[in-house]
């Protein structure tokens, strides 16, 4: 049999909301069936009466008095509930307010309130959402560094047209690297600052040229990536042209370097026309493109990244420059130990532009037919990166491919790039050593030799430690040369050497 009880607290004003909150807690108390806490105004007393909780209530209770009215299983439960209510009323005031939560901005417009004057947006969201983020950033006056891939070429064109309209850079999509006023964005190396400004439609190409400039003793004012499709016919080099204009106007830039795979002819013509009217020397590297057309426009040509860096550094520092250290390597020495039938290069690249450069170098050295038979793979290509990180971050796929090459009786040389710098793996050389040793061991068991040739794309200031990385590779018997072009050439010479001597001794 349940009981209905009340307790009146005289002159105990509480806000009705507070009272409802306490009532809800009291109602959860064991043995309590129903509870109401009210100031004893006529209206509230009517509510209590309708709830069937008013029987026996002290009739002298008035508007300044607070009543706890409840139905409980028995008197013991009711008394305990009154104590609970009294405790809650006392404690309610003392409840710690605590620090208010701070909202981390989730959108660009919110973030602009938190970082006024923001001028660059780095966007690395899934491609599905990247266009919208880039558009909002541009509309709010920010340059865009668009690392995301899977952005359609239609969206790229629209974004770049908007960028041109607003005088803003759209670096990307699928842009890996930039250095703006000495600040690295994405995958970039710690290079000295100086007078060479670069625009690149290729990420690792830009990294290679900036690192080699550093090695030659020259520095970088700006490096602006524009994404691999910028010089396609449809996009028309919108950003390379805009960036070139910017670098010509940039006070810190004395020499401009343009880097791209061979552009569409109409785009190449536009870019060279712009270069020909530039008021600063322009060095153009259209990887494997028409060097004569470049020279005809009045620009300097660099057929490899190394040559582009050397020419640009020469223009800054005064020609001629001595060649880089590390020589070119001795193909005969590397070919020792190879057996008949080992006539292939396995070029296992993490940098797409470096892979392209290797193909160009090999084509020049070996001719199209032999070069075409070589296996030069860009492991950063979409077909290898579905569902896994880029090989510059995650060495596992490349390790597998290196071990596979060790088991392939036709492979004479494994050709590698090791890319240092921000965002890359913390120890890219060390991460590949077990695979290199396993490949060597497999070849040895099979009575074959195996040459490994590599170049380091990095500087002594990169956080991975250039010297340490070099030592790790040298200790593992990897032949290191100063640039990717040299590494590709050396690999080509090894293959050529084995072919010329026929059956080795």
């Amino acid at each position, binding site marked *: 049999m349940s009981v209905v009880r009340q307790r009146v607290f005289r002159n105990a004003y509480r806000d009705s909301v507070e009272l409802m909150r306490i009532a809800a807690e009291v109602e959860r108390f064991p043995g309590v069936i129903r509870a109401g806490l009210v100031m004893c105004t006529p209206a509230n007393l009517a509510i209590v009466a309708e709830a069937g909780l008013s029987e026996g209530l002290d009739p002298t209770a008035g508007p300044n008095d607070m009543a706890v009215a409840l139905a409980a299983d028995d008197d013991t439960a009711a008394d305990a509930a009154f104590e609970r209510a009294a405790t809650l009323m006392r404690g309610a005031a003392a409840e710690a307010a605590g620090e208010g939560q701070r909202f981390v901005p989730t959108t660009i417009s919110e973030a602009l309130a938190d970082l006024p004057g*923001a001028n660059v947006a780095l966007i690395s969201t899934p491609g599905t959402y990247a266009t919208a983020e880039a558009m909002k950033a541009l509309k709010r006056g920010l340059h865009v560094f668009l690392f995301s891939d899977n952005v359609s070429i239609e969206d790229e064109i629209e974004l770049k047209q908007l960028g041109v309209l607003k005088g803003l850079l759209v670096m990307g999509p699928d842009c890996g690297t930039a250095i703006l006023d000495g*600040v690295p964005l994405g995958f970039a190396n710690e290079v000295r600052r100086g007078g060479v400004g670069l625009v690149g439609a290729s990420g690792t190409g830009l990294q290679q040229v900036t690192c080699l400039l550093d090695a030659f003793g020259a520095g970088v004012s700006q490096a602006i990536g524009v994404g691999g499709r910028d010089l396609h016919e449809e996009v028309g080099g919108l950003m390379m042209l805009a960036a070139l204009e910017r670098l010509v106007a940039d006070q810190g830039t004395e020499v401009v370097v343009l880097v791209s795979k061979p552009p569409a002819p109409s785009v190449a013509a536009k870019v060279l026309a712009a270069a020909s009217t530039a008021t600063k020397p322009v060095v153009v590297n259209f990887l494997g493109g028409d060097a004569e057309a470049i020279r005809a426009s009045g620009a300097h040509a660099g057929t490899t990244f190394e040559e582009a860096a050397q020419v640009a550094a020469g223009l800054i520092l005064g020609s001629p420059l001595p060649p880089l250290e590390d020589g070119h390597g001795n193909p005969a020495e590397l070919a020792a130990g190879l057996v008949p039938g080992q006539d292939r290069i396995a070029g296992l690249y993490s940098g797409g532009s470096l892979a392209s450069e290797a193909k160009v170098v090999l084509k020049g050295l070996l001719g199209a037919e032999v070069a075409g038979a070589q296996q030069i793979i860009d492991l950063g290509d979409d077909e290898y990166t579905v569902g896994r990180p880029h090989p510059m971050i995650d060495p596992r796929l490349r390790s597998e491919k290196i071990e596979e090459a060790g088991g392939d009786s036709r492979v004479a040389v494994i050709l590698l790039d090791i890319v240092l710098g921000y965002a890359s793996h913390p120890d890219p050389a060390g991460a590949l050593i077990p695979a290199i040793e396993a490949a060597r061991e497999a070849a040895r068991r099979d009575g074959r030799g195996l040459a490994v040739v590599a170049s380091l794309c990095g500087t002594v200031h990169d956080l991975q430690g250039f010297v340490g990385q070099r030592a790790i590779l040298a200790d593992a018997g990897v032949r290191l040369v100063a640039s990717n072009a040299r590494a590709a050439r050396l690999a080509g010479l090894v293959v050529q050497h084995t072919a010329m001597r026929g059956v080795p001794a």
Partner: protein
Amino acid sequence: MLANGVRALNIGLAGFAEPISAAGAAVLNLDWRPPAGADAELGMLVARLEDDPDDAIGAAVATANRTALDRLLGASPFLIDVQPAGDAIPGLQGRMLLHSGPPISWERMCGPMRGAIIGALLFEGWASTPEEAERLAVGNEIAFDACHHHGAVGPMAGVVSPSMPVVVVENTTAGNRSFATLNEGLGKVLRFGAYDDSVLERLRWFRDAFGPTLSRALEATGPIDLKSITGQALQMGDEGHNRNVAATSLLVRSLAPTLVRTAREVDAVAALDFLRGNDHFFLNLSMAACKASLDAAHGVPGSTVVTAMSRNGVDFGVRLSGTGNAWYTAPVGVPDGLYFPGYGPEDANPDLGDSAITETCGIGGFAMAAAPAIVRFVGGTAADALNYTREMYRITLERNPAFALPPLGFAGSPTGIDARRVVESGVQPVINTGIAHKLPGVGQIGAGIARAPLSCFADALRALAAQLHVPGAT
């Protein structure tokens, strides 16, 4: 190359921020997530509507919003009179009743609204029994329309009939007027669908004595500045929606001397007694003031500013300044809250009333920081109260300097809800609300906090985008 060096926002991979800050440049990591609930197409629409002086669409939206906001912040709502609704409200003619929320037919009305309609028909003498009233309502003899279509707002069922006295509020900046019935207090009241004799008796007293008494007092006092009262009340623990005790007291203090001088003693005593016992009397004035301010901001082509949020117990509806008189609706839910003894969520009607006009205007739930007591409705702390307001800054374009919030360093209340921000961030406007019993006549059974459904804002934004010929908008 960049005027002040690199200052970067990092959207996506958090690691990209490290080299930037290592190089000594400023960088801010966003807590990014796919916008617009991962609806890429809708997210793109928001991007195309983003402010941009160099882009035709972006410039149109930015300019329109500036105009709407200036009108909203510049509004000066004054209480000027109390008059019968049929005389004061344009278009309220013949056998017509107004109700809260987006338009709705009798067939779809919820219990409390039907109860209020029956009560109004009895009160007007158009029916003499509830059964007769219901027959009238079912037939085609009574016209129903939304309060919002007539410059009016009503809490809960919001039913307005021609004989009911309404407050007349004038925005002296733009000259537009708004209207609201007189608040009946708690307990059995028409707005919760009650229509027994006590309810009708009170309405008759409103009509015959209280309304005329207030009108005479106002004539002597002159217009009363409602914005100023709300501004003061926000510093006294009110938020202008669910807590009105301070504003009611301030209003009564202004009215009492002239009321006593201009009314018969019996009327003055009755009026002051009623006001003393009704902490929510100012709510209807607060709502009318907000309506007068927002109506001034309504109708600016291209503006994404929300000018009405309202519920009729079935649908939740919003209007944008730039989309004219169209309503964008979604089913309305039951608020999260606390209940009077003996009631629970199973008794609750889905959310109801035009009172969300206060939140639309930047007070109510948006000014929760001013009224920590309110947050107890959902078992929150004083810190939670601040956070409700902080969260609303994320979806509003302005801070109203007239409504300073002491706990936030006297920051202005978050004002001017931008449908773009709501859709992009997914932050739902917070609404303080009373909870009505789902059966007519039972009345209020609790109070709590509701959130506006996102799809209304998305639909409104799509319609606005189509008007502006945004690519991809239909």
